[in-house]
């Protein structure tokens, strides 16, 4: 018992101490969401601090492994600004989250740390864009940091060699969100990891805009995510698995320079968004529960997710018996006919003798007879050939 307690204590103390700064009272909810997302990894212990009362805002940055800024607010005192600058310069880890990008236009060093020039003014031909455009040759009157709401349609392309994005699908669909256009920054010296198409249909710029990028300042490592703005959309960009996972990986990278987190089993792809209401993937039991009410002409996403999990397990040469047992249990429970029919089609290629009694039972009911026969025929074909 004593050993267990000691181990737990070690585990607890080994978490990265993280500070999320609430820029103003509006930022409270956003900070809580970011804290939840980081703590889901079991790697971070998060504390939040309110910066709305400037005189009271006196964080000791050096106590933290990671500092997260999520929003703009009143200017910090010179003392705090200097402390933050020193923290980053001497190897601190920082995450700038979407609403932070345009903060503190008057604080010159801040824009060096973020790599972004602030926004709301005409693009400066002497300052480079973060991505794609050569400012000298671009004669357009671009407004730096202007935002567009892009509805469920933009796809993110990754620099897949970076630890944050390595192994993730290289194109995926993000939930409806706001997208920055024409980001510029003279202090930008990092890597663009992902960009997203700013669709002209939604008055976007018609070009790929950076959404995930890194920066360095002194010894500090900086990760910036332009994803996830409006908290009021449900299920919104904060629930997008793409945002959540890249934030979690970006945070670890900022602290350590590498990423130990396993790749997520579920992720949006180039055809579909993926939202996690509780900021983490559903368990297999939760997926089966949600799949149980499937009817034709309604969402099939939980069924698709089960199929994808099975495919993934099969690719890892895992025993599929675990899934088969779940499916047998599912077929023998009070669930929709359509969801049963779907499961039987899945069993037709990955089932074993174990599911035959259940399929026989299903074959005795009119509504499930056809797919039960389908599955049994396929399973029998295989035993013939063996």
């Amino acid at each position, binding site marked *: 018992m004593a050993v267990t307690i000691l181990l737990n204590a070690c585990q607890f103390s080994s978490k990265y101490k993280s500070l999320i700064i609430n820029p103003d009272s509006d930022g409270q909810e956003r900070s809580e969401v970011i804290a939840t997302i980081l703590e889901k990894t079991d790697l971070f212990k998060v504390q939040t601090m309110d910066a709305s009362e400037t005189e009271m805002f006196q964080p000791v940055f050096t106590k933290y492994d990671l500092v997260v800024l999520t929003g703009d607010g009143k200017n910090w005192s010179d003392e705090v600004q200097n402390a933050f600058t020193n923290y980053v310069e001497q190897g601190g880890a920082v995450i700038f989250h979407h609403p932070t990008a345009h903060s503190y236009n008057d604080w010159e060093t801040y824009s060096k740390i973020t790599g972004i020039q602030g926004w709301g003014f005409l693009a400066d031909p002497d300052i480079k864009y973060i991505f794609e455009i050569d400012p000298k040759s671009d004669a357009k009157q671009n407004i730096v940091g202007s935002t567009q709401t892009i509805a469920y349609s933009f796809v993110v392309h990754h620099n897949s060699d970076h630890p944050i994005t390595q192994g993730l699908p290289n194109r995926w669909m993000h939930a409806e969100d706001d997208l920055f256009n024409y980001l510029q920054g003279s202090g930008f010296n990092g890597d663009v990891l992902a960009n997203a198409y700013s669709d002209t249909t939604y008055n976007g710029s018609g070009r790929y805009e950076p959404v995930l990028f890194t920066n360095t300042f002194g010894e500090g490592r900086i990760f910036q995510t332009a994803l996830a703005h409006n908290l009021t959309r449900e299920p919104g960009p904060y629930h997008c698995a793409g945002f959540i996972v890249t934030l979690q990986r970006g945070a670890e990278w900022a602290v350590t320079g590498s990423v130990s987190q396993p790749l997520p089993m579920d992720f949006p*792809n*180039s*055809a579909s968004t993926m939202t996690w209401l509780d900021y983490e993937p559903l368990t297999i039991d939760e997926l089966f529960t949600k799949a149980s009410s499937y009817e034709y002409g309604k*969402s099939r996403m939980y069924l*698709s997710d089960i199929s994808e999990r099975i495919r993934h397990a099969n690719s890892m040469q895992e025993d599929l018996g675990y899934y088969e047992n779940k499916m047998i249990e599912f077929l023998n429970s009070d669930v929709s006919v359509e969801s049963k029919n779907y499961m039987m089609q899945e069993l037709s*290629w990955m089932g074993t003798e174990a599911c035959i009694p259940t399929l026989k039972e299903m074959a005795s009911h009119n509504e499930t007879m*056809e797919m039960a026969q389908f599955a049994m025929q396929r399973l029998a074909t*295989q035993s013939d050939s063996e």
Partner: protein
Amino acid sequence: MSKNSSRRDFLKTTLVSGVGLAIAPHVIPASALGRGGATPPSDRIVMAVIGAGSQGMGDARWFMQNPDVQLVAACDVDETRQLQAKSEFDRHHQTSDSRTYLDYRELLEKETVDGAILALPDHWHALIATAVASKGIDIYGEKPLARSIRDGRAIVKAAQENNIIWQTGSWQRSRPHFRRACELVINGRIGKIHHVEVGLPDGVKSIGTPPIMPIPEGLDWNFWLGPAPTKPFRGVVHWNWRWIMDYSGGQMTDWSGHHIDIAHWGLGMDHEGPVEIEGKGIYPREGIYDVPVEYDFTARYKNGITIRVANQSRLPHDMGTTWYGDAGWISVDRQGLTAENPSVLEETIGENEIHLYKSPDHVRNFLDCVKSREETITPVEVAHRSISVGLLGEIAMLTREKLQWDPENEMFTNSSHANRLLSRPYRKPWSL
């Protein structure tokens, strides 16, 4: 069958002897000769179209450009399409007596035809092609050959056992620049080939999740589903069936009969199959369409050559077939022919080098072969080997396994999961 055989023999005699008309007068009354120099009925190829949708009617119009073709019947499970076809056939042939059918079995029972155009959803290919072949009727069958490897093999067997002429709608083989590309490759103009990339179209955009809706008047939905699982009607039927896995494998299998077919032709590997397949598909989580929107798989052949098949966005040469050899690459698509070293494209093929089958026109080639009883440019086994690559890729993606394939016995040697996906069980009462 005897009826068809004798008619076929007659057609062959007239073509081969070239004196059919000279020896025929006592057989054919003069009144039966075509008007105004048109082909006489005895020399006409009488045909039906089964599946009279946009593809089937497109094919039928192509056939009707040939004066020796007479289209006499149309079969479709959608009455609207039957009537459209009849109206076009009658107008073209200046008659009023072409016939329409809902059920292909009735057509086969009542009609005596030389050939049939089959332009059906993939899940129907095997049932109808084997039934038509068993009547000794020659077939112009749309690609891809079949929805499953087992279906494809059944079609090959039926076509060969009944000695019918089969042309697959893989018409790229009849285009000069595709043949040119293949002749350059097969004659070693880019050296020994080690890799081929085949770019096929990107997946189509989702239409979301349509609700169950009333079946349109005149459409026999249950018959349309045929051997596929019973599903309620949700508005997706003509053309767009190909984005649903019960009926098709999506762009990947739809186009296998084009650019994979060309890849094999250039390699001189028309009758071969891969020995190993591995790949990944990206499937939509939502919506009625469930085929992969992105796909990327690689098939390795016993001689070590690999063919990578992927949706066009993933490949440097986009759509088409690109062979990579020791001395550069050659790429071909519908727009034309390109090469790493453009001077290669100017080279002539010598008299003693390999000259591939030359077809002036894909439909004409079929018609000529119906008469001569020679093999077409895309016979049935070749079509089977082309679609097999797409179907094997589909299985590798569905199981996400690295699969070992025995192309002789058409079985996977390392996966019972994958072997089950070689066929799609039929809904009763349908069976092959």
